[in-house]
């Protein structure tokens, strides 16, 4: 079996991927610095969204507090780089992801036995606690100022603050995340998650310990959120407590639905669409929120399947993963 089939892709899809990757790869050649920065931000959000969709699209649970794990990842990275002057990105990334996993592990353990509105409220409450912590613990987190001057470290000896290296690294991490998540989603574990989404009760009767699977998926999504945040910190060079505020959690839900939560690549598409929408709207007027908010309203009312989902319908594909 070829590599493509092993990770569940058809040949045409692989070609489409290749084309898109080439476009993204060549971006720094013809785009402005601002656009490259934007694409970089979109890549971190795409990683966040793809991980988030593991519990939204595949498990069917809405967390309204996922920004917390992104923030934890971002702050861990920020602190390690500025306070402990750690130059090795390998260590920074691993630590940030591990910290995010730990936090998600604890919070997830408490939340996964609850569903729907209660799950949303619980995750929200915990995220707000983290926000409060980031805001108040001035000694560690510098409160509302956030942590500034986060420089780009090295990875495997390559200096990432040189030229467009950081952007290429982001692209690499995005592709890696995409592949890893694709493998997870097409595995027996992934199918079991879908089973839990479709019928949690029957799944119990079929021998699946539903809370346990939910917890594992929650931790995994927390890890990718943390990765996204950790990658964002040196890109933005500054992190602040707003990264954990509930409106940012709402944003990731928006992005995931915007792109289409029923199709694997949807959320990544949503991330890019959102960042460019924001940029475009800001260019038109300072009241860009009205535009973004209206787009969300239109999507919710008219195109609930998101961009990828609606396109998929048009192309006649089945609503499946």
């Amino acid at each position, binding site marked *: 079996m070829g590599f493509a089939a092993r990770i569940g892709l058809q040949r045409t899809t692989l070609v489409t991927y290749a084309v898109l990757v080439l476009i993204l790869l060549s971006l720094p050649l013809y785009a402005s610095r601002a656009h490259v920065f934007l694409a970089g931000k979109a890549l971190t959000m795409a990683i966040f969204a793809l991980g988030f969709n593991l519990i*939204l699209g595949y498990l069917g649970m*809405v967390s*309204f507090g996922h920004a917390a794990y992104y923030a934890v990842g971002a702050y861990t990275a920020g602190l390690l780089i500025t306070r402990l002057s750690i130059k090795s990105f390998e260590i920074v990334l691993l630590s940030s992801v591990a910290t995010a996993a730990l936090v998600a592990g604890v919070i997830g353990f*408490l939340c996964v036995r*609850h569903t*729907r*509105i*209660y799950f*949303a*409220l*619980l995750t*929200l*409450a*915990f995220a*707000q*606690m983290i926000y*409060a*912590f980031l*805001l*108040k*613990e001035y000694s560690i987190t510098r409160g509302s100022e956030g942590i500034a001057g986060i420089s780009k470290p090295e990875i495997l000896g390559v200096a990432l603050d040189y030229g467009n290296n950081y952007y290429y690294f982001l692209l690499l991490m995005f592709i890696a995340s995409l592949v890893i998540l694709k493998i997870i989603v097409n595995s027996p574990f992934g199918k079991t998650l879908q089973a839990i989404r479709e019928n949690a009760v029957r799944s119990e009767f079929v021998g699946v310990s539903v809370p346990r699977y939910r917890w594992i998926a929650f931790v995994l999504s927390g890890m990718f959120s943390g990765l996204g945040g950790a990658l964002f910190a040196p890109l933005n060079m500054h992190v602040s407590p707003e990264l954990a*505020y*509930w*409106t940012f959690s*709402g944003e990731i*839900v*928006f992005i995931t*639905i915007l792109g289409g939560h029923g199709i694997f690549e949807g959320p990544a598409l949503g991330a890019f669409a959102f960042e460019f929408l924001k940029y475009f709207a800001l260019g038109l007027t*300072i*009241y*860009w*929120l*009205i535009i*973004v*908010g*209206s787009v*969300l*309203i239109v999507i*919710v*009312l008219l195109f*609930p399947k998101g961009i990828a989902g609606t396109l998929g319908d048009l192309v006649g594909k089945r609503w499946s993963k």
Partner: protein
Amino acid sequence: MYTCTYFLITAGLSLIFGVLGILNCAHGSLYMLGAYAAVTLVRLSGPSPILQFLSLVVAGLSIGLVGMLLERLQLRFIYQRQDTYQLLLTYGWVLVFDDVVKLLWGLYPEAATGPYKLMGSSSIFGMPYPNYNFIIMIGSASVALLLFVLLFKTWLGRVIRATSLNRELASAVGVNVNRIYTYTFALGAVLAGFGGALIIPSTAASVGMGTDVLVEAFAIVAIGGLGSLKGAFVGSLTVGLLRSFGIAAFPEIETALLYLITASVLLIRPWGLFGKRLT
């Protein structure tokens, strides 16, 4: 004092959830709109104290109109959909209203201190206490009383309560559920808007007030029980006390404390202190 405004807001939120089953993310934004609307109306009404106080009431009512529009034009299409979509739609409103406010009133906090100054202050335990705060308390208490009368003594109130308990049954006995939904949402909006209107003489209306209030309102409603007015009251009382004393006693964890309590309640008794048990 906090208790009163929080009660108005959370009562509205609880009502909307209890009857429509929707957790309205934009509730804080309605509160904010009420505040800004009040600012404009108070300024317009000139020096007359009666008009000024009247503007506060009118501001609250106008938000009810906004609520009605939102429900009729958008919300009603997503009742059948999953929870995610209701959260997202109302979240979309948050984004839009945040900018609408900036558009209409600018970026800076706006105050309308007229009624506040009018009332002057009295001395309590030797410390000056603004009399306006009494107005807030009286205002909220009267609204609460009106709400109570509406819900428990009038025909409309009975219908609303019936619909919240069993939608299908209500519809089967001839209740126009759609209309009840609209009215309830509008009522919730009025409560939020009035809450916002009441406070602007003493506190300025600002752009972030909607999102800040919302997450606290969620916390209160979660603690008290989604859909329960008694719970909204108890929750608001708790938070009000927490706010007043917490800032003095433990400033560092005061913000986090609220959410800690919320999480604890949700973990132990998901339906809150007074909510209905959902199996």
